């Protein structure tokens, strides 16, 4: 468990003055990630996307640690290249410090175009933490669907119209795909519970091998809600179990935040413009289907916890 008093003494390594939208979840995640790293020297990489574009407008930068971006699909390959350089230079005594490596990527850069390089880096066992700041669409290019976009959401490439009602497929379960790589630490987190997130980052950075955190980060533009509701909205994601907060540590599943009472998914969907069309009477079956899928996945997750805690 993270301690807020100690945390407040840690250096701020992502500064204000970046150009992310007010209320953007990605900025909060970046700041909390580096806060969690404390005084440990880190090198950060990022995929192309909102986070990178908004924090590095030349000649300015919001990053006080070394930061590197090169392309959209390769944050993991990039981070593994830096980590390989570190291992080589350390062996030769040219670098003496203990440095940690953190890769960021949006859901597009992670679930879709970047999954190959991410999977490769995890399989090769580079000691890096990959954080997917997951706002469930390609926000930087104007809210297109991604493999992380949930069923029913309206996006600019899966719009709701006369015939189609937003995205018609389920999102892929990347956290499970990453856990299946057998890495020491994989987790799902959310903005709106600093303690849960910071603890996960600290565990991930301490892991002896690759680690992965999939963190839900609302996008006030893409999700269409009031900027001040970022935290509330994400807590609703966990309370409705549409986005459970859990971790897989050395193969052991654990649900980190168990809702006292499981709320209906409509509480999460209703405040967001991207789901507005689902509340038309004729779209009730879609809402039902989403609820069913969420229930089934939640059941399955609980079963996994049971099985793996006994193992």
């Amino acid at each position, binding site marked *: 468990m993270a301690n807020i008093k100690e945390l407040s003494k840690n250096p701020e390594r992502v500064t204000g003055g970046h150009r992310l939208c007010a209320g953007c979840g990605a900025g909060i995640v970046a700041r909390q990630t580096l806060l969690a790293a404390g005084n440990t020297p880190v090198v950060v990489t990022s995929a192309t996307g909102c986070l990178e574009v908004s924090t590095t*407008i030349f000649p300015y930068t919001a990053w006080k640690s070394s930061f590197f971006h090169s392309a959209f699909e390769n944050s993991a*390959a990039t981070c593994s290249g830096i980590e390989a350089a570190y291992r080589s230079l350390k062996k030769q005594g040219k670098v003496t410090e203990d440095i940690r490596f953190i890769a960021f990527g949006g859901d597009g850069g992670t679930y879709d175009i970047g999954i190959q390089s991410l999977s490769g880096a995890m399989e090769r066992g580079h000691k890096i933490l990959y954080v997917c700041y997951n706002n469930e669409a390609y926000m930087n290019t104007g809210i297109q669907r991604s493999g992380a976009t949930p069923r029913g959401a309206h996006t600019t490439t899966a719009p709701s119209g006369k015939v189609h009602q937003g995205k018609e497929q389920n999102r892929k379960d990347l956290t499970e795909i990453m856990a299946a790589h057998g890495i020491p630490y994989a987790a799902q987190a959310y903005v709106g519970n600093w303690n849960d997130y910071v603890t996960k980052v600290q565990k991930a950075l301490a892991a002896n091998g690759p680690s992965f955190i999939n963190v839900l980060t609302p996008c006030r533009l893409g999700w269409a809600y009031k900027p001040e509701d970022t935290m509330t909205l994400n807590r609703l994601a966990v309370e409705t179990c549409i986005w459970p907060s859990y971790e897989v540590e050395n193969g052991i599943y654990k649900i980190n935040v168990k809702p006292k009472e499981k709320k209906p998914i409509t509480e999460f969907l209703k405040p967001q413009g991207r789901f507005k069309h689902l509340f038309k009477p004729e779209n009730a079956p879609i809402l039902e289907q989403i609820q069913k899928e969420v229930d089934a996945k939640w059941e399955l997750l609980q079963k996994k916890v049971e099985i793996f805690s006994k193992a």
Partner: protein
Amino acid sequence: MIKTVYPKGRLVAKTGNEVMAEAMRQIEPDVVAAYPITPATEIVQIFSQFVADGIVKSEYVAVESEHSAMSATIAASAAGARAMTGTSSQGLSLMWEMLYIASGLRLPIVMAEVNRAISAPINIHGDQSDTMGARDAGWIQIYSENSQEAYDNMIQATKIAEKAKLPVLVTTDGFIISHCMEVVETYPDEDVKNFIGEYKPDRYLLDTKRPYTLGSIDLQDYYFEHRWQLAQAMRDAKDIVLEVAKDFENTFGRKYDLYEKFMMDDAEIAVVVIGSTAGTAKVVIKELREKGIKAGLIKIRVFRPFPAETIVKDLANVKAIAVMDRSDSCSGTYAPVYSDVVSALYAAGITGPKAINYVYGLGGREINTEHIAAIYDKLGKIASGAEKAFTGIEYVNVRF
């Protein structure tokens, strides 16, 4: 035949791939990230064995694709490591996006590239379509005529890259050089290490005392300047290549230039070519010279930066020139080397020589002394006015 020119040199029998791997062993980069592709596979395979045997202290990253190979190489270089990779054809194509990033970020990466045709149709044999396709990527491109040159070029490339702050690729012709055994003179490890020196980057990501941001977004207010700086670095690289060649000659006794002139002093007809075919052409020229025909050859070693200013001086007094391209641009007009040569001549106000374009050897199609003799024969007729110069591309040894 290769002779020792360095007192401590050693003659060994090696293929182009073996000798490139040998150069890599001696350079001992901090990181090599690579993905296999014929005919370049052996290079990284041999190198990974060096790593496995503890002969080098490099980190070998066996990535899952060429895109990641170049991404990791770029990142390792940005992190402060000497970083190398090797590839060919489809691999280089998959790196395309990252090639521009390597040069745009001014990273001194060295790549061993084995020239191979590009799909489709799939073909594993040698032509230069792959690297010619990357000619605008801001990489210095050095082509080798044989294994000796491949070895020497790799060693020089390391120094050139670090001085010019530009990535460099060194090529051999697929199978013709990569898989053929030749006698090569290698130099002692220590002397190679002394020649390239220690790598001391000005700024690097692992220097946590001086953290910095690399790969920022550049808007209308800076991007143009950065791209101009890159283009300027390429222009300036000509002198750096020559400087390193001079050092190399002083150290190891082998002389290199941006391009090689063979019997050009009084040449009336000349061929311009890149890579192993230059060797074949030299044989033809010697025969022609015996018959009193004033034939010459220009072998381009450094294709990027293109040595336009000097090449035109050497071609100014030739009556007819054939530029031989081992790739085609599908531009509707001419192939890449021809376009560069002719635009250089025209820009220098030289319109005397008749310049014609031959495309040859695609997908490893044979090119022999007879083909080249026929080209010189044609040049002779054009030079004497007996025949008109053709204006399209002439395709050598192809069935229509």
